[in-house]
């Protein structure tokens, strides 16, 4: 069996293309990515999917946005399509109806995902879906499912670092820490990394992610790590480890900054229309991916400036 421990990764040219043909300024793009991954996580919880399934949906979303502008489709629809697809491949398929209900709830005023300070009152009317609503949602979701499969060339296999991390911890004898504490911290880093707009899961292999998460957890807990370069045992070199350690630790600070930069962020479902308004406010135009012809030179220059 070829690659149960490795994932297909984004090539440098794919990353370059994504950056250079982006339809969104980088900060907005990152905010969209983060918000949509959070939404996917929330939906996974409500659909009672294990994190091993939801995390795969996060990775599939990252893979599919590698080749396609996030603005091509409504963010929540892409999120729904990935989680539907992943659950179908796994042991716990969820019906389109379940997925539809969950996303309707999450985007409603009643949603617990966007706390308004007070406890959400349970008002089923806020997320009631008519048959027409459901049909429209299902059509969009299944269309996106096919589109995602094609853009991924059906590479739906996702290897997650979580089981590896536990194995590594075992070989490190849990760094002489309480098992649950250090394991939990490691897994927390791995789960947070799923949300990172640096798309760590499609730029680094599971073994590197697992090692970096262990390193971070050890540092947080003040655990004593082996003296020598133990990460090399797990096939990770110093540079990659250093990069990932910083990347994983920076997610929290980046989230704080995001909330400052976008004061309303996290108060309600991030929709394409919201992003378009933001772009208008900044005096930028936006298309939906196959957008109208614009001055491409300006576009590229702008992208380079914004970096």
């Amino acid at each position, binding site marked *: 069996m070829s690659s149960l421990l490795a994932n297909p990764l984004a090539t440098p040219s794919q990353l370059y293309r994504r950056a250079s043909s982006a339809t969104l300024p980088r900060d907005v793009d990152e905010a969209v990515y983060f918000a949509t991954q959070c939404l996917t996580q929330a939906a996974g919880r409500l659909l009672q999917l294990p994190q091993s399934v939801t995390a795969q949906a996060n990775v599939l979303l990252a893979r599919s946005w590698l080749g396609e502008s996030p603005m091509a489709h409504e963010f929540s629809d892409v999120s729904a399509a990935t989680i539907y697809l992943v659950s179908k491949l796994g*042991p716990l398929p969820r019906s389109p109806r379940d997925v539809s209900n969950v996303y309707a709830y999450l985007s409603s005023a009643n949603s617990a995902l966007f706390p308004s300070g007070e406890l959400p009152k349970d008002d089923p009317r806020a997320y009631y879906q008519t048959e027409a609503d459901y049909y429209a949602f299902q059509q969009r979701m299944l*269309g996106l499912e096919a589109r995602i499969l094609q853009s991924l060339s059906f590479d739906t296999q996702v290897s997650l670092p979580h089981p590896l991390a536990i194995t590594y911890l075992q070989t490190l004898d849990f760094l002489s820490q309480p098992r649950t504490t250090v394991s939990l911290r490691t897994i927390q880093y791995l789960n947070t990394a799923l949300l990172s707009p640096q798309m760590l899961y499609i730029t680094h292999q599971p073994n590197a992610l697992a090692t970096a998460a262990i390193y971070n957890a050890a540092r947080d807990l003040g655990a004593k790590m082996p003296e020598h370069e133990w990460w090399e045992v797990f096939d990770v070199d110093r540079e990659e480890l250093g990069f990932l350690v910083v990347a994983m630790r920076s997610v929290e600070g980046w989230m704080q900054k995001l909330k400052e930069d976008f004061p309303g962020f996290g108060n309600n479902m991030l929709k394409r229309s919201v992003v378009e308004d933001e772009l208008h406010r900044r005096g930028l135009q936006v298309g939906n991916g196959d957008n109208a012809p614009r001055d491409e030179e300006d576009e590229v220059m702008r992208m380079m400036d914004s970096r």
Partner: protein
Amino acid sequence: MDRPSESTPDGTSPRTFALNHSRPKSSFQGCSRIADYELQGKLGEGTFGEVHRARSRKTGALVALKKIIMHHEKDGFPITALREIKLLKLLSHPNILRLEDMAVEHPTRQTDKRKKPIMYMVTPYMDHDLSGLLDNPSVHFKEAQIKCYMLQLLQGLRYLHDNHVLHRDMKAANLLINNKGILQIADFGLARHYDGPTPRAGHVVGEGRRDYTGLVVTRWYRPPELLLQLRRYTPAIDVWGVGCVFGEMLFGKPILAGESDAHQLELIWDLMGSPTDETMPGWKSLPGGEHLSPRSRPGNLQSRFREYGSGAIALLKDLLKLDWKTRINAVDALQHPYFKKEPLPMEPHQLPTYEESHELDRRKFHDRKAALPPAPKGGTVGLGPDANGATAGFNSNDAYGGRSGANGGRFRGGGPDERRPAWRDRERGPPSRPPQDRPPNWEDADHRDRDRAPRNRGPGRGPDIDTYIPSYRQEEAGGRRRDDDRPRDDRRRPTSKDSGRRYDRERRTRSRSRSPIHDRNRDRDMYRR
């Protein structure tokens, strides 16, 4: 993230690079387009969809394109196809059919824009399948050739089992052969991850570790423990299938062509002897063994295969061992003395080549394939999701884990015969109407159906029965076996009009090698595993 540097790989300016590499509108960079292949005509057509032969414009290689049918779009992309694709993408072995690519065909502008794109699985083109080759009266395998195929088959199987994959539909029709003498195992629609130790040299497989659905493997190739409803089975079920295929290569026809599950068991006892506590320990305590008291008999394997020599008989005995716990594994079978005796196995390149037969039409799908016994139908019977319990946590590599459910209970009640119609009552006279065993709902969204009646069979197809009779009689006159299965053929028959004459002609056309992926009618429900 690794930010790309400002200079591009080929040294052009970023702008030029961006222009050169901008994606065409609405393109999907992942899959090939159907235009990347030069279609060379259909290889087959049926209710399962279409298989085309094509040449890749990029590599020049001959390929087969299998269309993935989407009947019911209520649940999106067919789950069985998704799993088969996912599994095939993980496998890489010379004796396993390789999934080379996925190709997409976008509906042309003029047609309905709302049409969904059509997906094709791209595999290497194989000239024959073993079942078809064996049916070709001009083909006779020499023993050294059979050994060559058997070694390749066992190597492929060892690879699968080493990687914790159960094929679960081992049969001659799923073994593809090309004119370079290479044999490949195809059709992973029923395959799943196996949770248990992999076979090791000199070790018996032993007991299974957990339950799986019993509704797998085409009947003629189904091992006795499955027929007796052992759920905790092991890779030994595939080994039994290899034994059946081996016998079929020697004998020229399927060796255990049961008409029902009960009859299948009788045939197995006839061949291998009735089960005893010595030959098949624990058989009485299997769900299907409790009320069974087979007539005692010694088994006629020895006499039936006498002409093929003691080596072949010894290997057959090991592969078709009733006791699944001590049945030979693929690793040991490869070392069997049979392969070290004269005549030694040929090398693939020494094998004779046969005229490829890829004329399109239904006629090639008419015969033996169509006569195969019915579908293995999966479905972890009667259990809720994840009842098998192996799917919790981060075992994300088990893409096939623990599936069960919704429709699994369909065949629960009743004896073995209820599971599938036996056709034996039809040996004389026209067949009665085939049963409508297709479930009414989304399940036939499957990209193909396994050995089952197409959905359009049923009431109101009287004329078919009439046109069918002459060919049936002819068939009997020709002394063919399997008469009792013949009625299934009516499913491929062209409707009314010209079909009588044409069907007769078709029955005479005996060229059956076909390739590469031919699906029988199979119907798999998505929760089957």
